[in-house]
């Protein structure tokens, strides 16, 4: 019998998501209101009949491990198989942080050897897409190489953000370029792989001697391409790697289209996630909602347009929310006016505040490379005092305990980060 086990890489720091990953791992960042990013990959696994999943974590894994629990929402609380979280650990052989994506495997080789399976499917916890991995596995079996990588067509202008594969007529990769300036191919590696188990172990062991920070994209794939041992599976659906804050914001708001490319509604098989006990959404008399996704537990008395609200958000009378993403349990005070803002969990916005208006051409002084596209980001548990104005491209975060920020306007591109969070 041939069996596939999945490994999900969920240890990345996700620095380019700015404050959103200040308190959580990237796979645990909320997406589409009620989901966490990792839900999409986990759902793909169980819908593809993979019932043994190992998750490699490392960076602030508390919220991620809390979310995953014993895997119940994905029916992965099983006696045989099921969900397992692999933290970096001390041991007879391994005793270090994971220093690269493939190094995480190196450090778990003793366990890997004991697993009963033929194939290892390596996935990322940072991707949003819906896929049936059985197609990938079928392709891999037919292609007859010991490894395969999933690739997706991207516009040529985006090639420099990905690893780009050139394939021959049989699907074997003949050339692999990491973030090329220009390329004749537009097949980007999705960072998902299938390996024959024994082959994975021997390759990782061999290359670890050469590279301490052993990485799939940087070391293993080029090595296999040189030897003609890896083929490329073309994935045809919607696929998104949550890389930058801008990409996250744009992909989120794209869900508001009448027919978005990511299928959440039409599908008979919903994305699986942790259930909660919020009461259903209440829309009050006088509220206005247009083009928005709004979760349970929300109470809307004001105006919401082109926005995504996670569970438990309150929008009071006269408040206006536009082009914004608001995470769990926030409250937007009376007559507050909010546009182009991403608000993390449990934030309290005082009445009459005005946030997100200004000159989008002034980038953030603190993180100019991530925050330069006309949004303001408010960190978890921040309290915004009433009446103040916060411009655009701002970063605002109160103290860890949920302190209020000073009652002072914040100009475009400026920031306020509480002392205990500065590093």
């Amino acid at each position, binding site marked *: 019998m041939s069996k596939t086990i999945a490994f999900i890489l969920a240890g990345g720091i996700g620095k380019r998501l700015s404050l959103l990953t200040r308190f959580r791992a990237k796979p645990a960042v909320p997406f*589409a*209101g*009620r989901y966490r990013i990792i839900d999409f990959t986990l759902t793909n696994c169980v819908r593809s009949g993979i019932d043994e999943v190992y998750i490699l974590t490392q960076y602030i894994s508390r919220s991620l491990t809390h979310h995953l629990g014993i895997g*119940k*929402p994905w029916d992965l609380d099983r006696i045989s198989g099921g969900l397992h979280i692999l933290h970096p650990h001390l041991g007879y052989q391994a005793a270090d942080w994971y220093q690269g994506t493939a190094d995480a495997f190196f450090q778990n080789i003793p366990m890997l050897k004991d697993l009963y399976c033929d194939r290892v499917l390596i996935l990322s916890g940072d991707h949003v897409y819906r896929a049936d991995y059985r197609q990938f596995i079928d392709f891999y079996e037919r292609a007859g190489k010991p490894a395969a990588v999933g690739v997706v067509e991207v516009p040529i202008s985006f090639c420099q953000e990905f690893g780009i594969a050139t394939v021959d007529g049989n699907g074997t990769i003949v050339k692999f370029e990491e973030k090329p300036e220009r390329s004749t191919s537009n097949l980007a590696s999705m960072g998902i792989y299938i390996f024959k188990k024994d082959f994975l172990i021997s390759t990782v062991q061999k290359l670890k001697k050469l590279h301490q920070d052993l990485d799939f994209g940087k070391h293993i794939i080029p090595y296999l391409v040189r030897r003609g041992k890896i083929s490329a599976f073309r994935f045809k659906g919607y696929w998104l790697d949550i890389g930058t804050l801008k990409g996250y914001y744009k992909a989120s708001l794209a869900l508001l289209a*009448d027919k978005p490319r990511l299928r*959440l*509604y039409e599908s008979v098989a*919903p*994305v*699986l*996630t942790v*259930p*909660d*006990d*919020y*009461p*259903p*959404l*209440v*829309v*009050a*008399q*006088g*509220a*206005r*909602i*247009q*083009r*928005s*996704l*709004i*979760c*349970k537990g929300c109470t809307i008395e004001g105006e919401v347009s082109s926005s*995504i*609200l996670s569970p438990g958000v309150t929008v009071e009378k006269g408040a206006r929310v536009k082009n914004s993403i608001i995470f769990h349990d926030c409250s937007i005070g009376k007559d507050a006016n909010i546009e182009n803002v991403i608000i993390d969990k449990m934030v309290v916005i005082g009445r009459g505040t005005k946030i997100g208006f200004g000159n989008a051409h002034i980038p953030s002084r603190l993180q100019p490379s991530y925050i330069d596209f006309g949004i303001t980001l408010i960190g978890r548990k921040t309290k915004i005092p009433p009446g103040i104005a916060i411009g655009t491209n701002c970063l605002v975060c109160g103290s860890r305990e949920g302190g209020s920020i000073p009652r002072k306007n914040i100009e475009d591109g400026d920031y306020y980060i509480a002392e205990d969070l500065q590093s």
Partner: protein
Amino acid sequence: MILAGGTGEELSILTKYRAKTAIPFGGRYRIIDFALSNCVHSGIIDIAVLAQYSPKSLIDHIGMGRPWDLDRKSGGVSILQPTHHGEVAQWYLGTADALYQNIDLIRNSKADLVLVLSGDQVYLMDYHELVDFHREHGRPITVVIKAVRPSQRSRFGMIRCTRDNSVIDFREKPKSSSFRFASLGIYLFNRDFLLNALRGNKIDIVFDILIPHLANRKVKCYRFNGYWEDIGSIPSYYRASLRLLRDRSLITAPGWPIFTRGTDLPPAKFFQGSLVQNSIVADGCSVKGTVKNSVLFPGVRVEPGAVIEDSIIFSYSKVWKGTHVRRSIIDKFVDVGGKSRVGVVSRGKPEALPTAPDTGPRQRTSGITVIGKNTRISGGADIPQGLIVETHARVAGRKRR
């Protein structure tokens, strides 16, 4: 012990395929969630649900009790249906008989008190206080009571009590009554007393246990002042549902969430041009039309130009373009074709429609229109007010300009 075996005849087709206690309520709950959540919040984690009528939906809903954290090694929730006991084999004949048929469970329990609840009521109650009251008064039975208006008294068991909270008279559903207090069907018994009292063909808790023990003052009454509604009929279901739009405290009480089985549906999606006012909208709904003063359960679709007013729509039903729904209850998986009218006109040709056998004079449903589960209504159909349309029916439409 939660009594959940009633047939709920007055709820007509809403209980054709489900137990009364499993009727959807408040946008995401089932009625029994209130009794179960009250128990769990009150620290009662050893629960039996006594079911016998159409229990499938109830069993599906409760499962192992996980949503209430009742999937426990010790205690937890079990669903008890009538079974063969050697020579005895019969349905639960009444409330006391249902307890008697499960007397082993009561006898083997280490608890010294037995709380008997009804699974078809919505209210928030901390049973701790009831237990304290019961222990303080030292009598074997405590019933929970509430003051009700004279016009309502014929629906209840009415109680007369003394100043020291002893029950001295009990009249079941009197035509009219001067007694102010109604029994809510919530009883707390000393276990040993109950074991004795159940002996010898006892059928009904009220007639066979409560009333016989009034004379020796064994029954105390505990007064409950909060909101409480018994979901016994279509008008009471409709009233309690729409009341949530005015007063949400039943589902938003701090520290007292109502636990229920969750869905995996995406958030509610509101399209350009939608208008929603004073309504509850559950996950997975997709709203393009107008919704006013209504409750939408998960996965409901409201297409452009459709208008839903003062209505309750159960999971996954679809209301197509230009349809008007007013003062109606639409069960699950119903498809209401475009340009139809449901509950809008007061007169029509009911004989041409697949009405439920118990669809009666208009006052039976107080003019509320009810559409049964899985029914398909073709475009342009007209379903007059107060009608009950069968489950799994086909309603022909007509072309409408």
